[in-house]
């Protein structure tokens, strides 16, 4: 059953990823991207990474893709002209694609290691606190002991990103535009 689910979700993820690249409309791209991310969350579930699957749905399919769709709606990027890259770029891209696929296939067919995943050791043993576990508790334990400094750096990174976004979106509003809108509002009020 799990094998069947793996093939279904692998096909879903790959197919919708291919449609992200092939869709003409950017909004369709975003929708297929969400589908691909959901398929990947299902694959995380098959790998017993329940916490990461939830995180994938919440952060990626939720926050990040909502941001993408929001920007798509804001910018109105629908242009009827199909922009194709120049021939050298296209050839390079296809060449790189073929090489990457061949490399992955070589890894698959030459290094035959089809062993099923080993059984997960029972939780509770403090001696093996860093071994694989499915619970968020194990994540929290690892994050606040072995990975405390990276965790704080990640928090700082989020703060920097937040401040950076605020600065970026404030400074680039050109003052003349703001004056015009104020004057226009004033002109509307006067009569």
């Amino acid at each position, binding site marked *: 059953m799990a094998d069947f689910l793996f093939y279904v979700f692998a096909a879903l993820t790959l197919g919708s990823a291919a449609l992200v690249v092939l869709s003409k409309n950017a909004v369709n791209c975003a929708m297929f991207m969400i589908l691909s991310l959901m398929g990947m969350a299902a694959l995380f579930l098959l790998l017993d990474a329940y916490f990461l699957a939830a995180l994938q749905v919440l952060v990626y399919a939720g926050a990040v893709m909502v941001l*993408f769709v929001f920007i798509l709606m*804001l910018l109105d990027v629908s242009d009827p002209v199909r922009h194709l*890259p120049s021939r050298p*770029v296209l050839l390079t891209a296809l060449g790189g694609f073929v090489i990457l696929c061949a490399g992955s296939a070589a890894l698959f067919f030459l290094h035959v290691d089809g062993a099923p995943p080993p059984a997960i050791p029972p939780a509770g043993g403090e001696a093996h606190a860093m071994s*694989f576990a499915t619970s968020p508790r194990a994540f929290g334990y690892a994050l606040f002991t072995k990975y405390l400094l990276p965790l704080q750096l990640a928090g700082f*990174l989020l703060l920097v990103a*937040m401040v950076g976004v605020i600065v970026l979106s404030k400074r680039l509003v050109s003052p003349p535009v703001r004056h015009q809108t104020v004057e226009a509002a004033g002109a509307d009020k006067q009569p």
Partner: protein
Amino acid sequence: MTVGLNAFLLLAGLLFAIGFLGVLVRRNTLVVYMCLELMLNAVTLALVGVSRYHLSLDGSIFVFFIITVAAAEVALGLAIIVALYRRRQTVVLSELAELRN
């Protein structure tokens, strides 16, 4: 489940290749950015797979940090794209080539 680690790594490699193709072929900055996220996700899948098959939590923790950094990166990148659109009224890459030559 009898699927081996190889299958997950092959899947991750193919996803990475698809994302790579999208980054180079597409001309819309937002779609290019989405394909970039796809590549990041492919690496994430490989990390989770290796973490599960080798019974080590480190790969999963790394994925946690990747998701954090990706969220910050998307917020900043989209802010830059919006600023670019305000100034140039376009997000098509071939029209944003003033650094060429």
